């Protein structure tokens, strides 16, 4: 289980930006999100989208707990 945050165009596309999702790791989290919204699932794996787990960028797999925060970050605009 994890708290999922979406930013920028991903949140606009999904229609939400903050949701708790049942998942034991990043792969199953992606699968759950894709099942509910296939277009979002594709966008989350799109070019330039980074994943932050507990506010640190991760590449690869992570175990998730109820306290874990997973953020999907589309390409950054700068300020």
């Amino acid at each position, binding site marked *: 289980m994890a708290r999922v945050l979406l930013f*920028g165009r991903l949140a606009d596309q999904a229609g939400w930006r903050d949701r708790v999702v049942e998942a034991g790791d990043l792969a199953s989290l992606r699968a759950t999100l894709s099942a509910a919204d296939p277009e979002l699932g594709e966008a989350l794996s799109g070019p330039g989208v980074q994943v932050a787990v507990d*506010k640190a960028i991760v590449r690869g797999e992570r175990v998730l707990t109820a306290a874990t925060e997973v953020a999907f*970050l*589309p390409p*950054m*605009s*700068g*300020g």
Partner: protein
Amino acid sequence: MIATPTITLTDQPFEPGLLVTAFCTDRQETGAIATFVGLARAERGAAAALELEAYPGFTDAAIGEIAQAAIDRFNLHDVHIVHRTGRIAPGEAIVFVATAAGHRRAAFEACDFLMDYLKSRAPFWKKEHGPDGVRWIEPTDRDRTDAERWDR
């Protein structure tokens, strides 16, 4: 002297002059303070409003790391960065950067360096509400090449 940067994200309008007053106060060995204020342009009515999204705790941490790198690289006495989030009206300040150093070259270069980073690489997501609707903005090529100057 051990300097640590101050990084502030705020969804409220802020007054750069007050920040300058505070930043200039009680400096004995600082000879040079450079500041930059980025304002939302009206674009002759083409840009109705700007909306900036940050990831609190992530965005400010990322900016803080770069500010600390600037302190080390340019031997700064102090750095203050304030960045607006949320909806920003034309004429309002988006970003404020202040750098304090012994001499002006370091203060100028550090301010320039920090702005290049903030405009091209800082974790913000920006959209413009214009007469033709909403569009997400990405850094310009110029922003990218400006930022790359410091990678050499």
